[in-house]
């Protein structure tokens, strides 16, 4: 008979679970409130979710302080790993979610927000993403990923339109395939190293001098496919435009930011030690992937006739741009990744919120999709402030200084230049120029064309004070980003550097 194992409670370091547990407790309390008294208004649930996220954020900031003092915090037999990038990415995840959740407070009624489960699922999803980034254990990553993804599929489907069901099923099918790939990849890594923890796998592989390189490459092929799906890298991107189109604009904007930063962090942990140990094949594949993702999605975006689909392709392109950081793999580029994503979340959230407030319930005759370019035609004449806001977000996405994303782009290209990837830097720069065209297209429609009859009644149809506040926050974050870049850079560099990336 086996001896029972005695574990001191203190050694578990339960505190490392605190941020995720806050989100889980929040979700459970929403369910309990609904049990006690049903039919409450969505504003209650939004505020409860916001409060729990605020607590979550507080706990993370606390961990940030601890990390700077004592270094990486481990817990649960080293399963939980609270290092700098885990804390940083969780802060982006939680802060992004806090900006997103008030978007439920629309002036029009939407089916999904009547269910308290929507908010509970939302918080479960955040907990999932938090688990995913706060560990280097392959199994734990899998659990976090699946928790979050399953919740997200449901959130999409709750939007209750035929295209939403299509989107949810499509996303689910693709996601299941990606999960399968992930499982295969980790299985092979476990088979050759006997461990499921990435830092141990790295050590074992290095001691072994990569004698099993064939298996490593095979597992990496699976992993690239899995993360290709999650990060919507070309050619695994096909689900993205359809899913974005099918889900509500608010959720689409959310999907372009939060799930991706989680996937980026795991990709950083997984791929960078291999790139650094000179697995040339992986480097080449990543290089090609980055370039193709950036360029091809930009070209697809050029021909879209629907603004939301254009933004979907644009966010694929941005993901490809940032994936370059994983390829380059220096402290500067990883810092650039977080800086870019922090600035991107403001701008992109603003752009998707602008779409969301202009959402109409019924299509006009002859209107093929929810948000054709024509809808925004001549907007400056009927809704000048709205057009200026939308134009601002488009200019920022295009990388026009002094708006937010320019600084992220500049720093990313700078990091490519610094580490000798000159050609990549040029490709990144030229891609920004291509992207300029389709962002400009919307500006041309808004500012230089005449209004189309019928569409202007939908402008700001869906707006409420809280949505306008979110747009305001996004706009302030975009315009005054230049003053935030320096403190952000300092903090992020400190966190990234101290985590050894």
């Amino acid at each position: 008979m086996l001896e029972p194992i005695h574990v001191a409670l203190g050694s578990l370091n339960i505190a490392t679970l605190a941020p995720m547990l806050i989100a889980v407790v929040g979700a459970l309390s929403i369910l309990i409130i609904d049990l006690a008294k049903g039919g409450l208004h969505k504003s209650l649930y939004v505020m409860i979710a916001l409060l729990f996220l605020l607590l979550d954020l507080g706990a993370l900031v606390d961990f940030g302080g601890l990390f700077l003092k004592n270094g990486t915090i481990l817990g649960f037999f080293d399963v939980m790993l609270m290092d700098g990038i885990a804390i940083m990415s969780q802060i982006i995840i939680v802060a992004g979610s806090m900006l997103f959740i008030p978007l439920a407070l629309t002036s029009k009624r939407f089916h999904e927000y009547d269910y308290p489960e929507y908010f509970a699922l939302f918080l479960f999803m955040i907990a999932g993403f938090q688990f995913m980034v706060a560990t280097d254990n392959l199994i734990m990553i899998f659990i976090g990923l699946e928790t979050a993804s399953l919740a997200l599929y449901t959130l999409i489907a709750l939007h209750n339109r035929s295209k939403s069901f299509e989107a949810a099923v499509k996303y689910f099918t693709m996601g299941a395939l990606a999960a399968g790939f992930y499982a295969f990849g980790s299985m092979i890594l476990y088979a050759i190293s006997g461990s499921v923890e990435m830092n141990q796998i790295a050590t074992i592989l290095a001691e072994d001098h990569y004698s099993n390189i064939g298996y490593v490459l095979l597992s990496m092929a699976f992993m690239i496919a899995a993360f290709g799906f999650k990060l919507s890298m070309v050619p695994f991107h096909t689900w993205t435009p359809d899913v974005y189109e099918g889900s509500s604009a608010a959720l689409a904007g959310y999907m372009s930011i939060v799930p991706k930063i989680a996937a980026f962090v795991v990709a950083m942990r997984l791929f960078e030690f291999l790139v650094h140990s000179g697995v040339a094949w992986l480097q080449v594949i990543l290089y090609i992937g980055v370039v193709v993702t950036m360029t091809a999605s930009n070209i697809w975006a050029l021909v879209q006739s629907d603004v939301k689909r254009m933004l979907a392709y644009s966010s694929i392109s941005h993901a490809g741009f940032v994936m370059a950081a994983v390829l380059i793999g220096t402290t500067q580029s990883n810092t650039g990744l977080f800086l870019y994503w922090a600035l991107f979340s403001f701008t992109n959230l603003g752009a998707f919120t602008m779409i969301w407030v202009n959402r109409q319930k019924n299509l006009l005759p002859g209107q093929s999709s929810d948000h054709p370019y024509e809808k925004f035609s001549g907007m400056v004449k009927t809704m000048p402030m709205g057009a200026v806001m939308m134009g601002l977000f488009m200019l920022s996405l295009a990388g026009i200084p002094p708006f937010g994303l320019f600084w992220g782009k500049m720093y990313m290209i700078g990091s490519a230049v610094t580490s000798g990837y000159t050609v990549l830097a040029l490709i990144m720069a030229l891609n920004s120029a291509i992207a300029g065209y389709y962002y400009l297209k919307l500006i041309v429609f808004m500012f230089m064309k005449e209004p189309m009859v019928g569409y202007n009644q939908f402008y700001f149809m869906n707006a409420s004070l809280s949505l306008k506040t979110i747009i305001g926050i996004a706009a302030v974050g975009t315009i005054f980003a230049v003053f935030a870049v320096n403190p952000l850079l300092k903090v992020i560099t400190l966190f990234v550097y101290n985590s050894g990336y």
Partner: protein
Amino acid sequence: MIDHILTLLIFFPALAAMLGFVVTKDSIRAYGIAVAGIEFLLSLWLWYAYDPMVSGMQFMEAAPLIPAFGINYLLGVDGISLFIIILSTFFTLIGIASLTEKRRIKDLIITLLFLEMTMVGVFAALDAIVFYVFWEFSLVPMLYIIGAWGGPLRIYASVKFFLYTFTGSLVMLVGMLFMAYFYYQATGQWSFAILEWYRLILPENFQLWLFVAFFLGFAIKVPMFPFHTWLPYAHGQAPTIGSVILAAILLKMGTYAFVRFSLPLFPDASVFFMIPIAVIAIIMIIYTAMVAYAQEDIKQVVAYSSISHMGVIILGTFALNVEGVSGSVFLMLAHGVVSGALFLLVGVIYDRRHTKLMSEFGGLASVMPRYATIFGIMMMASVGLPLTINFVGEFLSLLGFYKQSHMLTLTAGTAIIVGAIYMLSAYKKAFFGNVTNEENKKLKDINKTELVGLIPLTIVAIWLGVYPKPILEPINNSVESVIQLMHDKAQSAEAKVRIPDLSGKNGTNTMQEAY
């Protein structure tokens, strides 16, 4: 206040533009004139306070912006940028004062004031990224002006304008990041400060690559052959005010940037590329002059002649000696005054007839004598008649380049003379002969609003042609220090010979304290 006059000059119009949203539509023009007038007076004050004997930067300002990456808010003016700043404020004032546009005038004036901010910002910035910010941001107001108030093809023209310049600038941005990285490698610190970059001596092969990266950004802006195709469209479709600002100021950003960045940062590469660029410049002069001759539209004639003269500016800049560079900086101002005035004049006739085709006109001199006189003076200035403003600049530019290559200069000089043909023939077609078109008979001569803009420009065009010294001297002082810096930094034997050593001469010993 004088310590922060540059910040004031940059952000006063922007602040005024934001307040302008409150002003009602009927009063916005007066508001615009008032703001632009104050801004112009401020820039004159800057000139007054400027010490022409000092060759280096004056009124310098510094504030940290992103110190972690070496980006700081650095401003300053020297003789090279001072007058272009005054030209920008002058043209914004004239442009708004002689504005005849009626549609959505409020949006237009607010946009112009934002544009003024970016123009002054570009010429006052001493940090590459701050420079880049203003440089790129200037595209947005111009895009709006062309795209919203332009002709039938305005959207195509404005998007083309935007994408061309945007693409070139992004390559330049990569170049700037490279420079900063070199600086980091050399000193262990990030910096985008241009004056600190001046101290770097780069290996020659790096200079060549970086020169090309910067060149792309600048050449598209100028625009140099073969990147010039966006400009005729932009001019053809832009409203009068758009063409005036574009020709007078925005194009100067490119030529100014050559003097500010390319020459002092990459002296060896500048010498290496001197002859190829001169050849391009001469092609530009001849080719666009020929194209101008073939035009039917009087605005296109002015547009192509404007590109043609930009070629002379490039030639002067790449003479790499004091005469040439001073001449080209002076010619930038002259070209601004003259081509800006010509576009205003074309706008006058367009407002009356809503056509710009020369075949529609003829014999205008008898119907509109005052108009014909001013047009005549400006056209003479444009072809470089002695005692007009263009002559001084063209003469000095050619003189400078003559020291480098006799043959090329002779070709360029002949081309300029031949270039007079198209201007004279255009003038003949439009103004002399009998009034053939009935509609032209009852045209009103130039009115007061239009004279407000044109009279000062005519005075400047003649005054500076007769007595250029007050402007030429400060320019000369600053250019001398740039040339000396280039000579000191040059590594190859050829560059040492081509770039003259001025250390023996007077007035350049201030260089050490300047840089």
